């Protein structure tokens, strides 16, 4: 059998080296697919066609299978995130404590449905299945930072702060 040569990096962007590092650490094994996609998403913020193609070829996984994995798991995103992201937790405890109202408030203020980014690319509105801070429900994450027992007013204040930046 011929020795496998991984494809060249898509560009000289240094982030590809990080991606390649994850694959090399796993010996370019097929089972490293999800690990590698995680690395791509944390380096680039999302997964685009080029990156999925590159990872699939490097790991010798059919493109259809790689795309299938990307779309199966909620954590992976095919769209670039906004400059800021507000994530409202939609877990059960948060639902009982009125998280749906928070989502509705944010949707109204930003003029976008959940899962979308404002047209200017500034703010993404996401929901999470559960971030595990249920004892402080309802919870929202502002650029990853957990806000517990958050009210609609507090959330709107945060959105205003981002808007004036």
């Amino acid at each position: 059998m011929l020795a496998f040569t991984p494809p060249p990096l898509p560009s000289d962007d240094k982030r590809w080296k990080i991606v390649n590092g994850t694959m090399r650490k796993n010996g370019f094994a097929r089972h490293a697919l999800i690990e590698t996609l995680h690395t791509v998403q944390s380096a680039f913020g999302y997964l685009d066609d080029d990156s999925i193609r590159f990872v699939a070829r490097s790991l010798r996984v059919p493109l259809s299978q790689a795309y299938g994995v990307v779309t199966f798991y909620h954590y992976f995103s095919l769209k670039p995130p906004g400059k800021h992201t507000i994530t409202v937790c939609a877990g059960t405890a948060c639902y009982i404590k009125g998280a749906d109202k928070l989502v509705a408030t944010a949707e109204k203020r930003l003029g976008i449905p959940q899962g979308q980014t404002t047209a200017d690319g500034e703010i993404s509105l996401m929901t999470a299945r559960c971030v595990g801070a249920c004892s402080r429900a309802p919870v929202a994450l502002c650029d990853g930072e957990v806000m517990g027992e958050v009210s609609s007013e507090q959330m709107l204040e945060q959105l205003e702060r981002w808007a004036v930046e």
Partner: protein
Amino acid sequence: MTIEELEQIAKSVCQENEKYDYEVNVCMDLACMSQGADRLRDALVKAAEASGKQVLVRRTGCMGPCSSGPLVRVDPEELLYHHVNDGHAEAIVNSLGASPVPDLQCDLNDHFDRQVRVVLENAGHIDPEKIDDYISRDGYKALLTALTEMTPSGVIHRITESGLRGRGGGGYPTGLKWGTVAKAGGDVKYVVCNGDEGDPGAFMDRSVMEGDPHRVLEGMAIAAYAVGASKGFIYVRAEYPVAVARLTTALRDARRRGLLGNSICNTPFNFDVEIRLGAGAFVCGEETALLASIEGRRGAPKTRPPYPAVSGLWGKPTLLNNVETYANIAPIVRNGGKWFANMGSERSKGTKVFALTGKITNTGLVEVPMGIKLREIIEVIGGGVPGGHTLKAVQTGGPSGGCIPAEMLDLGVSYDALMAVGSIMGSGGMIVMDDTSCMVNVAKFFVEFCKTESCGKCIPCRAGTAQMHTLLTRICEGKGTMEDLELLMSLCETIKETSLCGLGMTAPNPVLSTIKYFRNEYIEHIVHKRCPAGVCNINVPVADSKEVLA
């Protein structure tokens, strides 16, 4: 590393701690962090330095009553302070050696007195990023004892004797599972830890992984010795970045100390663990789906048998247990199976950690002996429902569980008792609902969750959950009929009977249990076009009720 060396480390930690007159422990779990616990810790360190007193400020895992956070415990007096912020740091340090800060003291004796801490014994007492802290509290002693003094079958016998059942929800006897994997042939076997805490509203596993990561590793290593595996995987949700970081640190430190790796404790036993990240799929809590995900594939479940114990990861015999199950192993090996079997009820031994959330005064983590009455958990430990509202239901088991009505509070909490009333133990989420929650809407919430999370492999789950959701939406909007309710119930039975995996088989539970115990709420929506809790938005005129009922 030998037992003597382990004791030496424990001794030096104690000597080090004796240099300090006081220990100020700060809870740095997610809930307290969201209220500024990191700023508080920095302020305490600064105040301690300025005071000239010998104070050790320690970061710890979850102390339990999250609703009172940020929490600080001062030792040796064991004073618990609640709702502390960085402005209080100086007052706390000044109070050391004098009288306690009165405004911050909290009385949670009722909350703590009924609890028995086995899994959470270290949480709130050790720095999760310091392996020596764990060793000083008998950490890794069980592993080394097992390796040097016990045979693998001796370990399995002890686990079987303890009566421990899987804490992930199913309640399968742990000793039996270990025995099956041990008996399976082949040189390569795997030990896998399920840290994909998918139940929204539960966070016990997160707290254990973040607050006491070595305990999970020790449990896995003992399991690997017992079943003859040398490689392990921890599958953790990507939504838990702190847990991933803490486990990574713990793995590095355990390898450095020779507690993972080759020839552990100068025995022929080799074992190492890799972390695998989940990517947000509830179905990956199902064992065959989880294994598919570790292999880098879509998390679609497979039919069983063969069970993973016979053919799991890459077709090899695989032992798969939940985080809390592994966390119970070290104390059982240390204290004996009988000690564990003495706790709990007839067929559910030991303790269970619950994440108490929702409309309850003391939210947080509680660990109680199995068999305890639900009433005690809610009214005494949880402090009851706040704001003058009345308790309506307690939900256990998440999207796979059911709603237990307030009238059944005297139920003893065990695997079998919960199953008998149409719910399940689940991984330990316990969500309290009061009169402001609409049970039809709650059922719709869970079904919507299952609909989104269905992997799509089998039709009953893929199409069935979508149809259940349509029917429930219609009822919530006041457009439902009594035929819809009948159809919903028969659909539930079909999905339960014919789905491929646990997700589909249990998805109807929230619907069936709410229809069983809160049928009147469904009738109110259908016949009187009214949501008693005022949650659902109904704009449909009331038809002649006789006509609808006919």
